[in-house]
């Protein structure tokens, strides 16, 4: 709304101001009008971001249009126009030296330049009578000292020389700023610096052309026939570069935000401190940017910003102005660092849990082995010795009553030994270490009244895995016989790269489930503790397939040095 109003007002004023120019130079008038409306539009758009710059742009446009009143008519207009003539250039210079700050840049230089140029221009215009002979006299002219051509007026020459001096000084300041700017600011301001340079040189060439007759004393530069095209065109066209440069700066700012978005998505996952640092350097265009862990470092010449509680960014102080981009970049970096830390923490925890679980499993195996050994060496040997004693008693006693009692004791002892053997085997199948998994399974299978097919190739696995595989097979065989009434059972073991797969398939009644407190559920826990999985497929119409996948970490070769 405000933008439209400013543009329309500028257009209306401009049409009125340049109307007379159309009479003799329509292209120049059009270019001027379009250029100044564009400049005012730039100003209007800038009001939201920077009131100072916006107002200055609109002022520059109106001053330029006002200066064009020189062609309107005689009377007050030419005077006003003559006074306004240097104003647009002064305004643009002020803009170029100030942007992007919210206050006037180099204020003393700017004030001095304004004063020098405005006073010089006014003095020159007030001390001569511009009216050609036969025209009505101007309504002013305090002191008409000179009525001669420009080449003879001292004020004219001094004015244009001071213009050259001011422009050169302003260019020097622009170069100074360009050299001092860093990172995002340099990238953003590059088109503005370039436009400043072009505009400055256009002004200097114009000024040189204007002042030359005064120096050489030959001819009035305002004789239009002599105006070189380069001067004429640059005078009108160069200021138009400035809104374009500011447009480019705005685009550059947008790209900065896009680069931050790239930072979020482009970071390798998981990020490292180094990768986040490099991404921040790219996003904020500061190759000296540093990302450090720990306490905030004290560096007076660097801007220190916290990323997370534990990380800080050191960057160029100019970035303070680009708060939006910097904050977004820091948030992205914080996210990446947090993510990296969580990832590392999680990996470490998973590793610790896996190691601890492996230690627990191995410790469990070792403990079971110890208990089985104790049973074998202790209770079992004592009971067997007792059996030998009963054998002696039976061999030496002729008393039928004693022999009958001995027989009774012997059968009880046999049952006890058998139960003890089963118990020991259930705790730790010692035969596994002695004859291996395949033979041990065959030993179990040959005690079963069913047809079994066993395909167990020799594999190198840890005792814990081998023991678990053995128990899984035993439990599956027991279930197949006791519950499923199977007639035929197939037992297979297949070794893959990292997994050994144990399958027990029967032709029984099916419908088996992993009951929460059943024998298989207990085995499922043991399998899971090793990092494996146990599944049962048992359709109601018959057949059960039990499958255990166990990690095939090769066992340490026993007794290796």
């Amino acid at each position, binding site marked *: 709304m405000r933008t439209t109003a400013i543009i329309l007002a500028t257009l209306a004023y401009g049409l009125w101001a340049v109307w007379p120019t159309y009479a003799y130079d329509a292209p120049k008038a059009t270019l001027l009008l379009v250029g100044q409306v564009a400049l005012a539009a730039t100003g209007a758009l800038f009001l939201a971001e920077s009131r100072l710059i916006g107002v200055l742009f609109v002022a520059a446009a109106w001053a330029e249009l006002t200066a064009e009143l020189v062609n309107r008519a005689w009377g007050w207009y030419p005077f006003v126009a003559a006074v306004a003539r240097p104003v647009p250039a002064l305004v643009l210079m002020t803009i170029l030296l100030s942007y992007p700050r919210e206050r006037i840049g180099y204020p003393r230089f700017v004030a001095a330049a304004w004063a020098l140029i405005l006073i010089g221009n006014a003095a020159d215009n007030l001390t001569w009578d511009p009216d050609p002979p036969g025209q009505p006299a101007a309504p002013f002219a305090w002191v008409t000292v000179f009525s001669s051509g420009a080449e003879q007026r001292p004020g004219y020459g001094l004015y244009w020389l001071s213009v050259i001096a001011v422009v050169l000084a302003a260019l020097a300041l622009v170069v100074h700023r360009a050299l001092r700017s860093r990172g995002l600011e340099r990238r953003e301001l590059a088109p503005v610096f370039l436009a400043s340079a072009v505009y400055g040189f256009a002004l200097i060439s114009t000024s040189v052309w204007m002042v030359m007759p005064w120096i050489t004393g030959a001819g009035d530069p305002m004789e239009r026939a002599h105006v070189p095209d380069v001067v004429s065109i640059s005078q009108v066209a160069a200021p138009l570069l400035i809104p374009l440069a500011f447009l480019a700066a705005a685009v550059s700012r947008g790209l900065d935000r896009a680069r931050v978005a790239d930072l979020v998505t482009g970071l390798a996952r998981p990020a490292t401190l180094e990768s986040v640092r490099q991404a921040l350097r790219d996003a904020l265009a500061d190759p000296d940017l540093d990302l450090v862990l720990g306490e905030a470092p004290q560096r007076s010449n660097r801007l220190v910003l916290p990323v997370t509680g534990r990380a800080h960014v050191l960057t160029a102080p100019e970035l303070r102005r680009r708060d939006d981009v910097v904050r977004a970049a820091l948030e992205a970096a914080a996210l990446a660092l947090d993510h990296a830390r969580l990832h590392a923490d999680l990996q470490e925890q998973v590793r610790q849990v896996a190691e601890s679980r492996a230690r627990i499993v191995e410790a469990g195996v070792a403990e079971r082995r110890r208990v089985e*050994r104790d049973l074998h060496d202790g209770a079992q040997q004592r009971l067997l*010795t007792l059996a030998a004693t009963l054998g002696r008693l039976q061999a030496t006693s002729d008393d039928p009553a004693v022999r009958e009692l001995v027989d009774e004791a012997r059968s009880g002892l046999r049952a006890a030994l058998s139960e003890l053997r089963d118990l020991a085997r259930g705790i730790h199948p010692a035969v596994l270490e002695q004859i291996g998994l395949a033979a041990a399974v065959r030993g179990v299978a*040959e*005690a079963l009244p069913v047809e079994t097919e066993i395909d167990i190739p020799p594999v190198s696995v840890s005792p814990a895995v081998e023991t678990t595989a053995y128990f899984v097979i035993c439990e599956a065989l027991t279930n197949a016989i006791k519950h499923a009434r199977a007639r035929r059972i197939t037992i297979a073991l297949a070794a893959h790269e990292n997994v050994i797969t144990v399958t027990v398939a029967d032709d029984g009644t099916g419908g088996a489930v992993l009951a929460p407190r059943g024998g298989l559920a207990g085995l499922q826990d043991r399998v899971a503790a090793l990092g494996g999985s146990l599944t049962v497929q048992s359709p109601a119409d018959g057949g059960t397939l039990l499958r255990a996948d166990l990690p095939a970490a090769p066992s340490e070769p026993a007794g290796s040095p």
Partner: protein
Amino acid sequence: MRIMLCDDSALFRHGVALLLQTVGVEVAGQAGNLAELHELLATDVPDAVILDIRMPPTFTDEGLAGAADLRAAHPGLGLLVLSTYAESAYARQLLEIGPSGVGYLLKDRVDDAATVRDALSRVIAGESVIDSEIVSRLFTRRTAVSGLDSLTEREQSVLTLMAEGRSNVAISRRLHLGVKTVETHIAAIFGKLGLEPGADDNRRVLAVLTWVQSGG
């Protein structure tokens, strides 16, 4: 009959020694491990030794390996292995170390002096001994899975006794048959089962065990 004992449990060793003495077997020496046994054998070789399977240093199957060494060092020495486990795999390993004179008996059998004494005299006589529990287990399974219907009842009895390692003479005595009759039965069995008829030694026992274990 003179024997030696090799078992890491002194208690059990002592109990077995007393048991054997009651049935007239002289225990000429006792060893806690194979090295001690070899020392004893260096000066005095008895008729047979009784070996435990699970002994130091690894407590796995020292007895089996030890049996092979003893057979090589003292070919005439009868070897009776006493085991906690009714594992046919062990029995087969033992049978494979030589053609005759080895036995595999469950330790539980020490409650019957006659059985142990009988086993000892059989290995000393060059027969093989396979614990009847292992044999009956294999036959039970074989019967359940594919049946032994092609054999007569008598032939089944002969086959079982063959699997236990008994010689033709022993089988004839056991079944109160003439040796010739037993030999006829054996020929018939081998014909029906498709086995090579052979001498009545370990190889025959192995062949029979293999046949019983196969077929399901």
